[in-house]
């Protein structure tokens, strides 16, 4: 059994680290009057695009090195997570417990690789550590673990729990008169879970306008197309009927992602769901819309092809 991917992939990761440092020095917004907690990431559209590509490369390298994992749903969420961590959210990797930070809750815990990649590139932990994904003694578990990984807000992996957790976090903000926002990223598949709809009902009941759900609607779940396994449509109408403000976007278009996040901030008295139409495996031709890559890592050869496409 082949456990480790070797050669160009590992070298690529190290080269990526050096590039990363220079990239950060060039693009971190540091203003002298801002508190140490203030948002330090304010990327341009071009920089966001570049970063999303970097994160996708990490996903390929990490899962190939681990020999297992969920690349498809990580790649579909790459642009959403990039927009949040490098533009929209207030957070500070130097102070992961800053009480006023915006919270990002990855409910679809199997997309851990893309979150780890964003956290590492953001500076929560060293980029080299990404190579330890799923290995014994690693802080980067197969699914997220809030007690192990700096910057991870919630342990996830059993689906359907993140929106409930997000409600608790958002209620706490209201109780403490803090104006942080809570973002929960859901998969389309986990909208099969009854708890997601319990949470949908109660978030609207509690009028949580500081809570934004984003559905990574990549249309594929583990064993096939969602429309065949468990149809979600009419999806938008379901959320509306539950009392949510809804908006539908192309989840790979930064302008649309950022506009929808702004729309959520402007919406009062109800939570907002952003239904982000995405492509599973986005960015790698042979992984796009390929159900195989929901829960299968690319082989070394596939990874090399994928990295070439993501240059």
């Amino acid at each position, binding site marked *: 059994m082949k456990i480790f991917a070797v050669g160009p992939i590992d070298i690529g990761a190290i080269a990526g680290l050096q590039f990363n440092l220079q990239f950060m020095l060039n693009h971190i917004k540091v203003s002298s009057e801002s508190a140490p907690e203030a948002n330090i990431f304010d990327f341009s559209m071009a920089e966001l695009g570049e970063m999303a590509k970097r994160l996708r490369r990490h996903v390929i390298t990490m899962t190939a090195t681990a020999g297992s994992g969920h690349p498809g749903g990580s790649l579909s969420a790459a642009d959403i997570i990039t927009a949040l961590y490098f533009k929209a959210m207030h957070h500070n990797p130097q102070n992961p417990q800053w*009480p006023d930070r915006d919270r990002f809750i990855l409910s679809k815990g199997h997309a851990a690789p893309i979150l780890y990649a964003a956290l590492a590139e953001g500076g929560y932990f060293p980029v080299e550590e990404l190579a330890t994904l799923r290995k014994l003694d690693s802080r980067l578990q197969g699914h997220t*673990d*809030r*007690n192990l990984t700096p910057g991870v*807000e*919630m*342990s*996830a*992996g*059993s689906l*359907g*729990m*993140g*929106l*409930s*957790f*997000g*409600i*608790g*976090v*958002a*209620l*706490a*903000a209201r*109780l*403490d008169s803090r104006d942080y926002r809570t973002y929960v990223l859901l998969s389309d598949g986990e909208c099969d879970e*009854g*708890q997601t709809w*319990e*949470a949908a*009902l*109660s978030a609207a*009941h*509690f009028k949580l306008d500081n809570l934004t759900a984003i559905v990574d609607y990549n249309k594929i779940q583990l064993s096939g197309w969602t429309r065949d396994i468990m149809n979600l449509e009419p999806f938008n109408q379901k959320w509306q009927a539950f009392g949510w403000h809804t908006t539908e976007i192309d989840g790979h278009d930064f302008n649309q992602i950022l506009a929808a996040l702004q729309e959520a901030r402007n919406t009062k008295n109800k939570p907002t769901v952003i239904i982000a139409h995405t492509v599973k495996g986005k960015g790698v031709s042979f992984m796009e819309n390929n159900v195989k890559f929901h829960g299968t890592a690319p082989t070394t050869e596939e990874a090399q092809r994928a990295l070439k496409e993501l240059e």
Partner: protein
Amino acid sequence: MPTEASTREIYGKTLVELGKQNPSIIVLDADLSPSTMTHFFAREFPDRFFDCGLEEQNMIGIAAGLAAAGKIVFASTFAIFASCRCFDQLRMCLSQMGLNVKIVATHGGITVGEDGTSHQAVEDLALYCALPGFTVIVPADAIETAEAVRLAAATYGPFYIRLSRPKTPLVYQENYHFTLGKAVTMRQGKDVTIIAMGIMVAKALEAADILAKQGMDCRVINMPTVKPLDEEAIVKAASETGAIVMAEEHLAQGGLGSRVAQVVARERPVLMEFVNLRDKYALSGKPDELLQRYGLTAKDIEEAVRAVIKRAQGSL
């Protein structure tokens, strides 16, 4: 002084007392607040009370989110829904994340009574004790309940406290002080030890009184902390009395009896008898009728004591 009191009523009142002392205390319920008695808190602190409706799974997730943001969260519903209905959420959100949430469940055991099989939580301790990091407490009376609730609020980590629907006989005085993880010797004795929890403590004392008249000297231990166990008290009882009878309002598997037997087998093997619900669900009936029908009376404990002493003598 009254001879019995409601554990859930004292829970509701203790929550109000804690709410006054600590603004971080938040209470959740799942549409049962008049029964779990969290309605006292809801009335006093409406901004810090959230009714989650009949969404137990969602309630646990919300509790976890609040706790992750620094709150001390009490979440209540009936024991049956607080265990079986949301076990994955307890596992993921509270045990694995180790968050500061206190599940205080009322209507535990068969003494919920007439509502019948579906409402009788008799496997809840097995489920909660299986979860790493959880502290599991079954108070013997209202006085111990108030103490346990205060202690849970003051101690970081996930807790499960199981209370009853009917009033429970008082076995303690007002000045009782509960120590987490410590058993309480209610009565000294040298022939056999009865280890009980919850409503079975009063019955164990009753049985010990009767047996004393027949010349059998029973030690009675109340073991309110089902997890972590007071292993020292168990080993001492095994060494000094040579036989143990367990008494609990729970199925045979995974409850206090199973847990104590594991310690006895490892540290100091002695013969044991088990007074519990065996491997069978109960039906509808009045609490006392059910306790009698399903073998959870002082008389059942007496018989178990006689049996274990007889077996111990036979094995000499």
